[in-house]
């Protein structure tokens, strides 16, 4: 983690009120992994006392640029979206712990709704690079809010659900999950809390589908791994990204704490990626 100046290379409105911004920040891009975020600071006089986290949506180490997705509806988002190429901001990153993909996983199921796509976008690139097959389930209110398929790699199977049925399947993205979960080795979700709670309920108690790879092993064999460790997350069927605001990103302010299965956990340090079983979803 280090503070770095970042320069805006390009900003464009990819959806109504959704801006994709490309920032030149080589120090942040190098070593960035899917699931991590950058923390943006505003120097507006009388402006915003804390930074805002933005998931690193794509990272290109060759050019030293990363993209983030900015909602211009909020006050901070409007300030950030108004930047022009050449403008600079103070950007801290990469922060947080990344997704942990089991090396044996071939089929990844990615579940996103609305702006939550930004939290999974880099995982798409990483999975394709590693030769895994990816299904991306995406939910939006209407066709106007559907993430453009032109911004995704060709290798991805992109399945859309809209609430009003104007594009793809009518209904919520949560309904699509039921059809694809049997295919998946591992799944990853980012979106509103209601969606995350629903997929967490589906995944509860479920182990990875890697039956072949575990053949011949003793039941319950292997070293015990601590909950929350990268090893434990690698074995989890479902990992989620929490999209909430983070205050200090250093783990000191405890403003971003959520209820975990074993006590409070900090989204900024232990997260923003969690194995679903690490969090208390209030299922019982």
């Amino acid at each position, binding site marked *: *983690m280090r*503070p770095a100046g970042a320069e805006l290379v390009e900003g464009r409105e990819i959806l109504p009120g959704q801006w994709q911004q490309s920032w030149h920040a080589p120090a942040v891009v190098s070593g960035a992994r899917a699931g991590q975020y950058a923390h943006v*600071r505003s120097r507006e006089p*009388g402006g*915003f*006392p*804390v*930074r805002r986290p933005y998931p690193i949506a794509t990272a290109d180490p060759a050019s030293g640029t990363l993209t983030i997705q900015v909602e211009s509806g909020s006050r901070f988002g409007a300030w950030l979206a108004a930047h022009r190429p050449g403008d600079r901001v*103070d950007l801290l990153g990469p922060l947080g712990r990344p997704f942990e993909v089991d090396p044996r996983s071939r089929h990844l199921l990615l579940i996103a709704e609305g702006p939550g796509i930004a939290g999974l976008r880099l995982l798409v690139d990483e999975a394709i690079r590693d030769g895994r097959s990816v299904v991306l389930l995406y939910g939006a209110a209407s066709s106007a809010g559907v993430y453009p398929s032109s911004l995704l790699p060709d290798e991805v199977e992109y399945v859309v659900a809209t609430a009003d049925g104007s594009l793809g399947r009518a209904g919520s993205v949560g309904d699509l999950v039921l059809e694809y979960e049997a295919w998946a080795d591992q799944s990853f979700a980012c979106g509103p809390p209601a969606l995350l709670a629903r997929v967490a309920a589906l995944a509860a108690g479920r182990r990875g589908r890697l039956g072949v790879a575990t053949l011949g092993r003793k039941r319950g064999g292997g070293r015990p791994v601590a909950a929350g460790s990268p090893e434990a997350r690698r074995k989890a069927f479902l990992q989620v990204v929490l999209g*909430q*605001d983070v*205050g*200090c990103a*250093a*783990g*000191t*302010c*405890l*403003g*971003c*704490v*959520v*209820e975990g299965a074993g*006590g*409070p956990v900090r989204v900024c340090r232990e997260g923003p990626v969690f194995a679903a079983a690490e969090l208390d979803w209030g299922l019982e």
Partner: protein
Amino acid sequence: MKARRRVVPGAPRPQRTPTVRRIKPAIRPVTPRAGVSPSSAVPSTTSSAASSPAPSSVVDAIGGRPVSLEVDLGRGLVLANPVIAASGPLGYGTEVAELVDLARLGGLVTRGTTIKPRSGNAAPRTTEIAAGLLVGVGLQNPGIEAVLERYAPAWARWTVPVIVNLCGESSGDLVDMVRRLEGVPGIAGVELNLSCPNARGGGVAFGLDAEATRSLVAAVRRATDLPLIAKLTAAAADVRAVARACEEAGADAISAINTLPGLAVAADLAGPALGSVYGGISGPALKPVALRVVFEVAQAVDVPVIGIGGVATIDDVLDLLAVGAAAVGVGVAALADPMLPVRLADELADACRARGVTQVADLVGTALPRRPSPPSTRGAEYAR
């Protein structure tokens, strides 16, 4: 020449009754004391963050005069510069040790610590307000025992004075906690959070009542020889009375102010925005209140005052010094910029040079009136 006030440690501190107003002592500028500096008081080993010794005087590269930034808070607690990290934003210090050059801070106040572990409030715990942040963390901390075990060894290696912020619901709890701090290497002082509910006083915060404050501070004073700082809340009806009670009960310094209770409404208007219902107002929104309280308290007591509230720029530091703060705490602004307190200390040395003063004490209290100003308890409109 406006009135300036400095407290010289070692000088007998006159006892006073709250009813008799005594004339202010003469101006006594503090000279840097040879041989007493935090770096010599605490043995230092080289670590990544605490590699450079804290400079007590800074010499301009182009041959400017050295500026003394040292501040004496009493009972041997000498800060290398007046800018400290207030309780909260930097946690227990170890979390940011690789990011911040802690050795260049005047002091570090830890997050609020209680006798037993606390898991804190339900989310959301913070929400942004106009010019500030509403914070309702709920004192999440692992308890004094675990804090000393995990963090005190690191504090003992650092040169920066670490002041432990303590919260408790009875004087028994707080006495118990300060006794555990006694003799632990690396602890430079104690800050008492007076905004804790008094279990015996029907849950009303100690700091709202001068007598509850007096008995609490006196009990803690009897239990420890560590430098003792009492942190006032601006919610008290008369902060001067509470401040005098702290001084008379033996507090070595007073910090002012804590956050003010506030409320924000959730976006869907269905209830409060925070899981804790109320939150503490912090950030620039708090600065005028902090200035008012420091202004009043500095006139009421002789112990040094640490001004806290809305500090984000060097101008905020200078304002608080001008109304009588001997040192200044940086709060929520350090969340967005953890390096801010260190930078403010550097800028303060520059500000001293720009104003032609050789010691930061010369900037303290310049805005205080010659004659005591009327109290704000009269209400803002009737103050004159």
